[in-house]
């Protein structure tokens, strides 16, 4: 979680410095979901993500260096500089794609799950999406198909209460995403997404089921997006949380507090984890800055596979 937090905070600075380019959506505050889910997956389990993808990529095993280089559009980026922040792919670590079109990633995960089953594998497909995706028609189509075909896919909703600039209450009368899928018979649960242990525990149960071929399941994680929808968002639509209120919610501080209370994590270790993460991020920034931009010829080279 510290690696994601440190990475995202640094990316925010680098966006303002115009070193990281394009539309950048940070997951500060939502680290508990990425860590609680991806930490339990195998490299050959497939993950799909959306426009807020950095944390999922890092938690799934992508190197900080190559993610940072991608955000800077460099040749050593995960996608050789052709993807960018919203389109991270790292096949080696099972990240089969982040997509910038909200809800567009959901059926892709179903397709991967279908492929795993037909090819005889026990890999599980996981797709992350926000509560805004649930109002898309393709989400409902996908839930219907996933249940009809009993696909081993786990739908993970990061419900941060905002679809871009608008609160969930202004988009739908259905408060809980897990209620949207109820008529389809999806195994589902809503958890406190800022409690990484709760995410991990529930996801472990779903994962064991999906590994055995069951599915689909939906895990709704109630969480909080600390930053705006994108970097540069003036956020006129909401009041920032007071610092003390956020400290009560912060998934990292909560884990540190419970670890200290339960005696398995002391302050020194917590500080060291944060320090290590920030150093790794600085190393990633150095790596990315040293990586050249890709040659202009790359654009024409990769339109078609051969």
């Amino acid at each position: 979680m510290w690696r994601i937090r440190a990475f995202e905070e640094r990316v925010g600075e680098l966006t303002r410095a115009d070193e990281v380019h394009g539309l950048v959506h940070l997951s500060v505050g939502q680290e508990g979901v990425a860590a609680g889910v991806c930490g339990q997956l195998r490299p050959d389990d497939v993950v799909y993500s959306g426009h807020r993808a950095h944390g999922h990529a890092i938690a799934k095993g992508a190197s900080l260096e190559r993610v940072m280089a991608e955000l800077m559009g460099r040749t050593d980026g995960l996608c050789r500089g052709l993807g960018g922040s919203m389109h991270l792919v790292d096949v080696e670590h099972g990240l089969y794609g982040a997509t910038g079109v909200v809800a567009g990633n959901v059926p892709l995960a179903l397709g991967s799950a279908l492929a795993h089953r037909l090819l005889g594998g026990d890999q599980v497909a996981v797709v992350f999406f926000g509560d805004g995706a649930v109002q898309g028609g393709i989400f409902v189509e996908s839930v219907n198909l996933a249940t009809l075909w009993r696909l081993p896919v786990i739908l993970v909703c990061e419900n941060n209460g905002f679809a871009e600039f608008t609160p969930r209450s202004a988009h739908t009368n259905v408060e809980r995403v897990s209620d949207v899928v109820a008529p389809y018979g999806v195994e589902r649960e809503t958890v406190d997404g800022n409690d990484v242990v709760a995410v991990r525990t529930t996801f472990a149960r779903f994962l064991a089921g999906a590994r055995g071929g069951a599915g689909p399941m939906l895990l709704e994680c109630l969480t909080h997006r600390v930053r705006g929808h994108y970097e540069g968002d003036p956020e006129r639509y909401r009041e920032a949380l007071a610092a003390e209120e956020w400290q009560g919610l912060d998934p990292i501080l909560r884990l540190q507090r419970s670890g200290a209370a339960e005696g398995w994590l002391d302050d020194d270790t917590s500080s060291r984890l944060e320090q290590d993460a920030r150093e790794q991020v600085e190393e990633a920034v150095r790596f990315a800055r040293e990586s050249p931009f890709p040659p202009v010829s790359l654009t024409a080279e990769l339109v078609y596979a051969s």
Partner: protein
Amino acid sequence: MTETTYLQAITMTLSEAMRADQRVLVLGEDVAEGGPWGATAGLAEEFGAERVRNTPISEAAICGIAIGAAQSGLRPVLEIMFVDFLTLALDQLVNQAAKGHFMSGGQLQVPLVLRTQGGAGQRGGAQHSQSLEAWLTHVPGLKVAMPSTAADAAGLLATAIADPNPVVFVENKTLYFRREEVTEQPPALPFGCARLVRRGRDATVVALSRLVSESVAAANELAGEGIEVEVIDPRTLVPLDLDAIVESLRRTHRLVVAHEAVQHGGFGAEIVAQVQAAAFDELDAPIARVGAPFAPVPFSPPLEDAYLPGRAEVAAAVRATLQRSRLDDR
């Protein structure tokens, strides 16, 4: 030689591909029942419900599922029953399938075939009769095939299934039941390789899909007037065999481009632009286009018949282009 139809050629190619490669699967609305024309008839019986998957009427999601399956190692052949319904799947096709390989820096491949059919002439009205191939040719990352015969349907479909890229395979409903002599095993046909359908010295007609046989009929009619027309079928629009068109133009110096799609913004305009850039000096007259008027396809039979371009429109365009020359204009 054996007699077959365009439709039987497709069914046969699908079943051969499924027999040869376990990774090939067919999915779409009603495919297990064969679909409305029978293109997938018998496949479910031979290959089972796991590999011949009936889907709900959810074009967007089934397209996405096919893409995800392709990225994860399968070779799906997705049927979108009418090209008119492809509109519902365009986000998946354009934003996911076409860009997966590119945006991943080459890590992903999307070996997907999207079979669909278009065209008017069966009183289907404006939402079941369109020719929308030009939209697809505008999207880098997609390949677009448009067979006009049974042999080409078989040969191009085999190539499409083997291709590591997303291919949109646009059939034509009025061609499905035409009888045709083919070799027992029509060979796989490379993409980007046009077919010289008919030789001629006076004008070249580049025609797509249903307009190929209409153009041959027009050529036969014009032969009676002493006009010899060459007919070329590009077979694939992306990639396009521009060389074959230009080579023909060097012989005839006059060009007509013919398709059923609305002429305005149709793929003919792209052919015209490429040809004039490559071989302006070969042209003895402006390039003529044949296409549908800028209107939705009308339902009422006499209106639909009047709307559809065919033999008469191609013949008229050839005559018109022969009446013009650079010398006349001076």
